[in-house]
C-alpha cells in the first residue's frame, strides 16, 4: 500500500509542477489504476480457489484452445503437405498463387504505410490536444471495428462503382478504382484503419505532454521534438499497431471479396485464392496458400509477444 500512496504523492507533485493547460487530461489517475494490481496485490494472494477447481479450469482452457486453435492449424499444415513437399512448392509456384502473394504484399504495404501516417497523426491529435468533437473522432476511428467487412466493401461499390456516386466521372476519365488494385487497397485501408491509432492513443495519453513541453522549452523545433522525444517513447506501441494492422491487411476477406471482381491472376488476394482453389477441388494448393497465411499468423504472434514485453518494460521505470 505504501507504493500506492507514493504514486499519489508523485502525481500530485506532477500536478503542482506541470506548467498549465493539459491538466484536465488525466494521466495521473490512470497511473494509479495501473499501479494497483501490479504492486499492491501479489499474484499469490489471488490464488484463492482450491486445487481441483484450478485444475479443472486450466484443463478446460487448454482443451478448448487445442480443439479450436491448435487442431485447425495442424489440419492446415497437414493438408498442405499431404502430397509431399514437391507438390506444396509447385502449388506456391503457380502463376495465380504468385500473383495473389504479390498483390497481398502490395496491398498490405500500401495500407500499412498510409495507416501508419494517419494513425500517428490521429493519436497525436487526440492524446496531446483538447478540442471539441474529440470523442466523436475517437468513435469514428473505431467505426471500422464495428462495421461488417461486407458493408465496408459495399460502401466503395456505392462510391466508385459505375452506377455509384463518382462512377460517371471516373468512367469518363477512364480511372479504374473498383475491381482493381486501388479499390482493394482502399477497402483494406478502411478495415485496418483503427489498429495503429488505437494502440497509440492510450500510450500517448498516459505519457502526457511534459517531455515534449520540456523539449520545446529547451529550444527544439516541432519535428525535432517528434523524432527525438515522442517517437522513441511510442516506438514499441507503434510497431505493435503496425504488426496487427499488417496481419489484418493480409488476411482480410470480406471487404476485399466485394471490391475484387475475382479476376484470376490479377485481383485475387491470398485469402480469396484460398477459397477459389478449395472450390475447384484443388485442396493441396488451397491449403498451401492457407499455410502461408497461418505462418503469417504465427510470426505475428511471436513478434506480438516480444513487443508486449518491450512495451511493459518501457513503461515500468516511468511509473516510479
Amino acid at each position, binding site marked *: 500500500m505504501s507504493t500506492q500512496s507514493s504514486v499519489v504523492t508523485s502525481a500530485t507533485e506532477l500536478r503542482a509542477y506541470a506548467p498549465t493547460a493539459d491538466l484536465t487530461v488525466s494521466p495521473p489517475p490512470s497511473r494509479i489504476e495501473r499501479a494497483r494490481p501490479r504492486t499492491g496485490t501479489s499474484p499469490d494472494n489471488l490464488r484463492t480457489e482450491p486445487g481441483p477447481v484450478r485444475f479443472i479450469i486450466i484443463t478446460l482452457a487448454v482443451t478448448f484452445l487445442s480443439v479450436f486453435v491448435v487442431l485447425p492449424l495442424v489440419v492446415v499444415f497437414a493438408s498442405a503437405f499431404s502430397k509431399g513437399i514437391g507438390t506444396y512448392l509447385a502449388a506456391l509456384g503457380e502463376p495465380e498463387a504468385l500473383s495473389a502473394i504479390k498483390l497481398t504484399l502490395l496491398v498490405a504495404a500500401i495500407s500499412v504505410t498510409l495507416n501508419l501516417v494517419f494513425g500517428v497523426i490521429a493519436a497525436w491529435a487526440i492524446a496531446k490536444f483538447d478540442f471539441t468533437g474529440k470523442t466523436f473522432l475517437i468513435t469514428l476511428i473505431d467505426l471500422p471495428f464495428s462495421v461488417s467487412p461486407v458493408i465496408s466493401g459495399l460502401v466503395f461499390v456505392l462510391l466508385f462503382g459505375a452506377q455509384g456516386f463518382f462512377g460517371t466521372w471516373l468512367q469518363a476519365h477512364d480511372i*479504374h478504382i473498383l475491381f482493381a488494385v486501388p479499390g482493394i487497397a482502399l477497402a483494406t485501408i478502411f478495415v485496418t484503419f483503427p489498429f495503429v491509432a488505437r494502440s497509440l492513443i492510450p500510450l500517448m495519453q498516459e505519457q502526457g505532454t511534459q517531455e515534449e513541453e520540456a523539449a520545446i522549452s529547451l529550444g527544439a523545433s516541432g519535428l525535432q521534438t517528434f523524432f527525438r522525444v515522442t517517437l522513441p517513447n511510442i516506438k514499441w506501441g507503434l510497431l505493435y499497431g503496425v504488426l496487427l494492422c499488417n496481419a489484418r491487411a493480409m488476411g482480410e476477406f470480406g471487404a476485399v471479396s466485394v471490391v475484387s471482381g475475382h479476376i484470376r491472376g490479377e485481383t485475387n488476394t491470398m485469402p480469396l485464392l484460398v477459397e477459389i482453389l478449395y472450390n475447384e477441388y484443388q485442396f493441396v494448393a488451397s491449403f498451401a496458400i492457407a499455410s502461408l497465411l497461418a505462418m503469417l499468423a504465427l510470426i505475428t504472434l511471436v513478434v506480438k509477444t516480444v513487443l508486449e514485453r518491450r512495451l511493459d518494460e518501457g513503461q515500468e521505470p516511468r511509473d516510479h
Partner: protein
Amino acid sequence: MFRRILPLVAGLLWAGSALAADVSLLNVSYDPTRELYADFNKAFIAAYSKETGKSVEIKQSHGGSGSQARSVIDGLQADVVTLALAYDIDAIAGKGLVAPDWQKRLPLNASPYTSTIVFLVRKGNPKAIKDWDDLIKPGVSVITPNPKTSGGARWNYLAAWGYAEKKFGSSDKAKKFVGDLFKNVPVLDTGARGSTVTFVERGVGDVLLAWENEAFLAQREFGKDKFEIVSPPLSILAEPPVSVVDKVADKKGTRAAAEAYLKYWYTKEGQEIAARNSYRPRDSEIAKEYEKSFAKVELFTIDDVFGGWAKAQKEHFAEGGIFDQIYKN
C-alpha cells in the same frame, strides 16, 4: 532473417510477372465453367495466334451468375460475359453496356453449348431417387443453391416446375409441388459450386440438383464409387448464353478478338471442348460422337413452358414472386 528474405522474395515475384500479350480479354463467367474455360482458352489462344499472328491473353472471373452480372454493371471491365442464363445478360443490356439484340447476334440464342439439370446421389442410390416425384418424399434431403443468387438454382427450380406442370396440368399444382420440394431443402448456398461442395464434401443431403456438367465433374474428381448420376426422364434445356460487352470492348479496342473468341465456340474444336467437359454440344456431328456420354432426356425449353426469361424472372424470382411466397411458408 525474415526482413532480409522479404525483399528478395518480393523482387523475384515482380520479376516473374507475365509478359504483356497483344490483346488481353476478360471473360466474366459463372461458377461451374472454371474447368471448361481453362480448356477452351488454351485452345483459342493457340488458334488465334495461328490465324492472326497476334498473342492473346484471357483472364477469367468466376462467381454466381447474378452477382457476376452485378459486378459488370458496377464497372468490372469484362470484354465478354458467359453467364448461366439470358436474364443476367439482359440485366447488363438494361444498363446500356450490351446491345439489346445481343441474343440474335450469334446462332442458337447465343448459347453455343447447353446443359440440363440432373440428380447427383450417393453410391447405390440409398433413397431410390429416379424422378422428380421422389424429391418431395418425406425424409429426402435435397441440396440446391439459392435461386435468388444462383443461375443454376433458377434452372433447378424451373425444371422442377416444368415437370410438375406437365404432369399435373396446372400451375397451382406445380406451385404446391415446388413448395413441397423446397421444404426438403435444408440449406441454400449462394452458388452452384458451393452447393456441390456442401453435398460432396460436407456430406449433407441425399440428392444434389445440379448442372449435368457439374455432376460429371464431381464424379470425375471424387470417383464413380462415391456418387451416381440419375437423369430424370424429363428436364429443362439450359442454355447458358455468351455475349461481347459492347461498351467495354469498344473502349478497350478489343472487339475483334472478343468476337473471334465467342465465334470459336461454334467451330468443331470448340464444340468438342464443350462435349469433353460434359456440356451438351450444339453441333450434330460432335453430338453424335459423344452420344453415349449423355443420357437421353426429354428436354423442354424455357420459352415453351414459361414464355421466356423475362417473364419467368418476373413471375418467379422477383421480390415477392412465387419463390418468395413458397419459401416463406
